[in-house]
């Protein structure tokens, strides 16, 4: 029973780990890593949702009757691209923050400016 839903347990575990890192870590780069783990859990969630038990890859071949659902997989490709764009933007922001504040630690930055 529990093992049937193994993928979803992994999804929840990754999601919480990522979320925790985003909230608890003060290092801006580590926050981004947490955000990435958080997003990755959603990717796995979609991919698992598209799996049909006993189904093969959705390519028409002789003998195959049952196919996995390709749509969630295609959707998640888009979401991965979005994730990359977000990470790139976040990292470039961190570079500029480092240049302006001389640090990537939340506490140091907040001390320099009243925010």
């Amino acid at each position, binding site marked *: 029973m529990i093992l049937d839903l193994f993928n979803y347990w992994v999804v929840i575990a990754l999601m919480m780990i990522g979320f925790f890192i*985003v909230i608890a870590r003060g290092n801006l780069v580590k926050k981004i890593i947490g955000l990435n783990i958080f997003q990755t859990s959603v990717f796995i969630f979609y991919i698992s949702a598209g799996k049909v038990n006993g189904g093969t890859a959705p390519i028409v071949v002789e003998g195959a009757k049952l196919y996995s659902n390709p749509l969630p997989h295609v959707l998640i490709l888009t979401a991965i691209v979005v994730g990359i*764009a977000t990470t790139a933007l976040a990292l470039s*922001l961190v570079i500029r*923050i480092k240049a302006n504040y001389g640090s990537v630690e939340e506490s140091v930055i907040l001390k320099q400016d009243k*925010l």
Partner: protein
Amino acid sequence: MISHLPILQVIIPLLGAPACLLLNRPNLAWLFSILVSVLTLITSIALLMQVQAQGTISYMLGGWEAPWGIEYRIDFINAFVLVIVSALGAITLIAAKDGISKEIAEPKQPLFYVSFLLCLAGLLGITATGDAFNIFVFLEISSLATYTLIAMGDDRRALWSSYQYLIVGTIGATFILIGIGLMYMMTGTLNIHDLAERLPAVTASNAVLASYAFILVGVALKLALFPLHFWLPNAYTYAPNIVTVFLAGTATKVAIYLLIRFNFDVYEISAPQFKYMINMVFITLGIMAVIIASWTAIYQTNIKRMLAYSSVAQIGYMILGFGLDSVSGLQASLLHLFNHALMKGGLFIALTAVALKLGKVELDDLNGLAKKMPWTFAAFVIGGLSLIGVPLTVGFVSKWYLVVAAAEQQQWYIIGFVLLGSLLAVIYIWRVVEAAWFKPPKELQNAAGNVTATTSREAPVLILIPLWILILANIYFGIDTRFPVSISQQAAQLLFGGA
């Protein structure tokens, strides 16, 4: 051509953005982006007229049939929001030139217009599309563009605000993505119209409730609903002034639209107890937003920050109308959505003019400034009156509808809180008016050497014109209320009738 209007609405700014990059000259890019935004405005007005004439428009992207292909579905409510967003986009861009040439380094100015148009395309896309996953994609297009726009502020705190918003915004968008995934698992469709038909069959399932919760929280993060609003004051304060005008007028409005769409169109919560609980949550959060944010606004010395908190309070009014869960309550929310775009757009453009002269918008620096910039501060006073909700301005119209909607359900305490919120607005608007009009001007050195040297003391014409367009609209729609009232009524009835 006419039949392709729904997609043109999104395609025009989306293609305009890279074209802007190729122009690579600040003034050229500015003129071009005005052209693009005016074209989108014309498109959205044409769409609204088309919807009024023949009802809901359904557009199949690439000719693929609806539940399989992506459908753009324009009805009263999103045609209305499209007009608001594209109008604000065009007006903001007209005012953008002077502020931008001062706040952003010249080589980066064309990039500003690129991000602006991308943001506009994303917001219009969210509104126009009828596909749940498409909403997520456009949401991220507009969000990424917004982070860039905020980070262009000349204060280094803009970077931190942008980063903070990026983290929160991404979590919000990912929550929405999870919600959409759960809905897809339960129904096998992503088309919103299709979802609305299929969800009632599985509405008892926990997965559907979970998806509702994820989407609700995700959207609430994007629209800065009260306890999740902490990113908004920073983002609005440190973004370039003109970006604040645009964001205040459009970004939260589109998020409200999403909330309305999901809450009334997609999910049909049948269990009355659950529905009652959700509505009570909306009403409670709405009231808290109105009171606490208005109270915080009173204590701000930075005027931009003050108006940002006021925005959180105004979102509270919209959520209040929403939580009443009736046609008139929803109508009040939609009206306030339109009206708030007009008044906050006007007020923030006035601040752009002030910041152009002074470089900052601290309350102390405003002393006596109205004598030098009478047009700007006259506009600020009218916009402020509208924000308070004085009769003959639009602010009165939406608050009136909200009060009527509350009275309909005998929720008298809501009326009390709405009035209290208006009184708090009187206080924070009055502080600015008092400083600008009634306090003696400070020594001229305060207005820094180059300011006294300029021949014209009033703000540039290119800022005054869009400013007064918005302010006059505040008065016009406060007196002749037919346009927003009839549209919002039809939209509200459609949502309750069709859902």
